[in-house]
């Protein structure tokens, strides 16, 4: 455990020394801008939090969150891909599972900050829009957390891809080719619950029948197959690959 915490501290140092961590601001800022400009309807009503969150999530959770997961995974591996860093790092008395877990945790941490920034953005957009009803803390926090959990399988897959390819382009192209179909798949009630890349949006915006804003964020089959199942598969594959990999 202490090994893992040391590796995590190392990842934190590497991340915050380079300016790339600033990318966490891109999507929440865009979403906040959208939230401040969105029109609630023609009757001039002050609007409500669920509609505001849905409007802000469309770009953020459908496209940016899955893609950022991939970009951050590529970024934490880039430090080592450049200039023979893998050899240096793995020659130290570190265990490979600890390195893998630390990189995974670093990416998940960045995404968690991203979600917190979105929470702040939602609050700010609500102020600007003059939303009068009380802030639904429990529902919003549940949805933000669920959407973050839904990113885990994507992070696991992208971490595996980024460990494997030293170039930035191919893991990114892979991620994008799975994420862009979201724009079609979220409309399909049959496929969407099983498609891992659609889960961050589905967790944020209730779509299915009888799923209100205050009900559970994801149907059970999504949680089992699309999130937990695919996370286990991708993480196990990535970890085994990394342990066996020749550097």
């Amino acid at each position, binding site marked *: 455990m202490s090994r893992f915490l040391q590796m995590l501290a190392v990842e934190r140092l590497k991340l915050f020394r380079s300016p*790339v961590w600033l990318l966490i601001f891109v999507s929440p800022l865009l979403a906040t801008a959208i939230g401040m400009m969105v029109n609630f309807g023609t009757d001039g009503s002050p609007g409500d939090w669920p509609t505001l969150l849905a409007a802000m999530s469309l770009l953020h959770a459908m496209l940016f969150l899955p893609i950022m997961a991939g970009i951050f995974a590529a*970024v934490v591996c880039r430090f080592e891909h450049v200039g023979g860093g893998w050899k240096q790092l793995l020659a130290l008395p570190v265990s490979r599972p600890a390195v893998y877990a630390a990189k995974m945790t670093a990416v998940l941490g960045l995404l968690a900050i991203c979600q917190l920034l979105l929470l702040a953005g939602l609050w700010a957009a609500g102020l600007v829009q003059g939303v009068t009803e009380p802030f639904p803390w429990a529902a919003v926090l549940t949805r933000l957390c669920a959407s973050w959990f839904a990113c885990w399988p994507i992070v696991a897959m992208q971490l595996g891809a980024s460990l494997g390819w030293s170039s930035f382009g191919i893991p990114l192209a892979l991620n994008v080719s799975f994420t862009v179909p979201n724009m079609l798949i979220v409309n399909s009630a049959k496929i969407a619950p099983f498609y891992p890349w659609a889960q961050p949006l589905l967790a944020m915006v209730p779509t299915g029948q009888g799923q209100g804003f205050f009900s559970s964020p994801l149907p059970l089959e999504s949680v089992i197959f699309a999130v937990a199942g695919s996370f286990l598969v991708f993480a196990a594959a990535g970890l085994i690959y990394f342990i066996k990999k020749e550097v």
Partner: protein
Amino acid sequence: MMLVRALWADLLKIRGKGIWFLIFLGPLGLIAMQSLNYGFRYDYMMRRYATDPWGGLAENVMMFVPIAIYLGMTLVCSLIAGVEHQTSAWKQLLALPISRKAVYGAKLLLAAALLAVSCLLLSAATAVLGLLLGFGTAPPFGMLLRMSFAPYAGALPVLALALWLSVTMRNQSLPVTIGVAAALISPFAPQLGEWFPLSWPLFSFAGALQAAMIAAGIGLGAAIGLLGLAHFHRKDVDEG
């Protein structure tokens, strides 16, 4: 002449870097997506576009063309510049008796040509998909070519900008992120109006201002391309 030789050299350098893979992945991915889209709800789609099946297919493909073109441009430019960055070859390349304009111009032309190949493939693949879906009429090749090359013209400013940033910066994460962000915003850009350059790929195929949008794309693209050329011409080779 120097430009042509530089272009051939660049064409050799990009072999085995995954660039050709991307050029094929883009159009084939879009068509795979549409074949699923039509496959899962064939009857509904055929009924919905009964009067103009080809137009309906083009409309469905077109939804994803701007995002795919922007991503393709970003990744291709980053990979083309990456060939020189990774091997620290800028110094060696620029020490050769070749003008900097030819070096930069060749990379710009190469990126534009690769994307054009991708667009051509998209038109051809759309025609094949339509025939496989049993549309029954001959493919309207002119419209299908316009479906991929009009957005291409509207997206040229991003191509020029992506190459400029990718060549100038050694760390590719900023150029790639800017390009990816542009791509992801583009489906929502038309809501912001015609003045917003990211909406040009869509408005150059659909809407009242098609010719103007195509001209604007080519014009701004050429302007950014020339700016990049001028900057590269005076730039120090400071990266190792």
